[in-house]
């Protein structure tokens, strides 16, 4: 296999080498060394958010790892840990951002050994009901309510095709059984 296409720069905050893997698709890149969130669109990698995390997390799949999922090649370019607080308890899960320049982005999430391979949809979900329960109709399938929570970004590493920040909060509605999840930013 040929070497991954990367471009090398350095972090303006700590001087560590920054590797950009998602070609020119990244909006932000989080420094693997000091955790600062940098502007990937800026040639000088302007600091968007200084390091302020108390906890540091290590991804089970390191950034830059390539693998084949469902017959297609993907490279891990970003990693974030999200947290939801339910009844006073905090639950953390991992999200990997996968990239293939011919296919775009996919997501791989992991919570307590349970993995989901996720893609975004190109159509809008339709709010409906299944019996007494709120549901979503999507391309021939009805998804019934499963979970609804606020998810906070606790840690980021690598590249993202959106303006990621530690402390970001999104509303997540998850529908079983095949699994449909809506992620909405506030405001």
């Amino acid at each position: 296999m040929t070497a991954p296409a990367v471009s090398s720069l350095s972090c303006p905050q700590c001087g560590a080498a920054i590797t950009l893997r998602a070609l020119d698709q990244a909006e932000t890149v989080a420094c693997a060394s000091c955790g600062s969130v940098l502007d990937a669109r800026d040639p000088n990698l302007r600091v968007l958010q200084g390091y302020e995390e108390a906890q540091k997390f290590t991804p089970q799949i390191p950034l830059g790892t390539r693998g084949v999922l469902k017959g297609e090649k993907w490279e891990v370019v970003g990693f974030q840990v999200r947290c939801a607080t339910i009844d006073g308890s905090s639950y953390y899960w991992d999200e990997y951002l996968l990239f293939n320049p011919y296919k775009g982005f996919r997501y791989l999430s992991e919570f307590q050994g349970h993995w989901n391979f996720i893609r975004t949809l190109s159509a809008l979900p339709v709010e409906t009901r299944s019996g007494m329960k709120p549901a979503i109709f999507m391309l021939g399938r009805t998804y019934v309510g499963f979970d609804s929570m606020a998810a906070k970004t606790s840690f980021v590493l690598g590249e993202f095709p959106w303006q990621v920040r530690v402390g970001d909060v999104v509303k997540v509605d998850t529908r079983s059984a095949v699994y449909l999840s809506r992620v909405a930013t506030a405001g």
Partner: protein
Amino acid sequence: MSQSYAIDGTLFTVSSLTYARYAGVEGELPFEYWDHGVELFVDLDTDGTIDPARIATLDYSDEVPVAYVGSYVTLDELGLRNTRMIEGW
């Protein structure tokens, strides 16, 4: 945002408003790209009742707004040949 319109017999919902300008052009184009400032582009999506999903764009960059209607395709579905390879992939 979120308003729905029937275009070409299909119901579309506004999903994003983008203000854009020409950053560069290459080759021959069948329209005037000069003398344009920042123009409004409205992207619309179909909902989950329409399979496969379709997409529409309202282009306000000329005197008369123009609607473009299309569908999502993968790069493989286009079946392009002799394209430039991306280094490392």
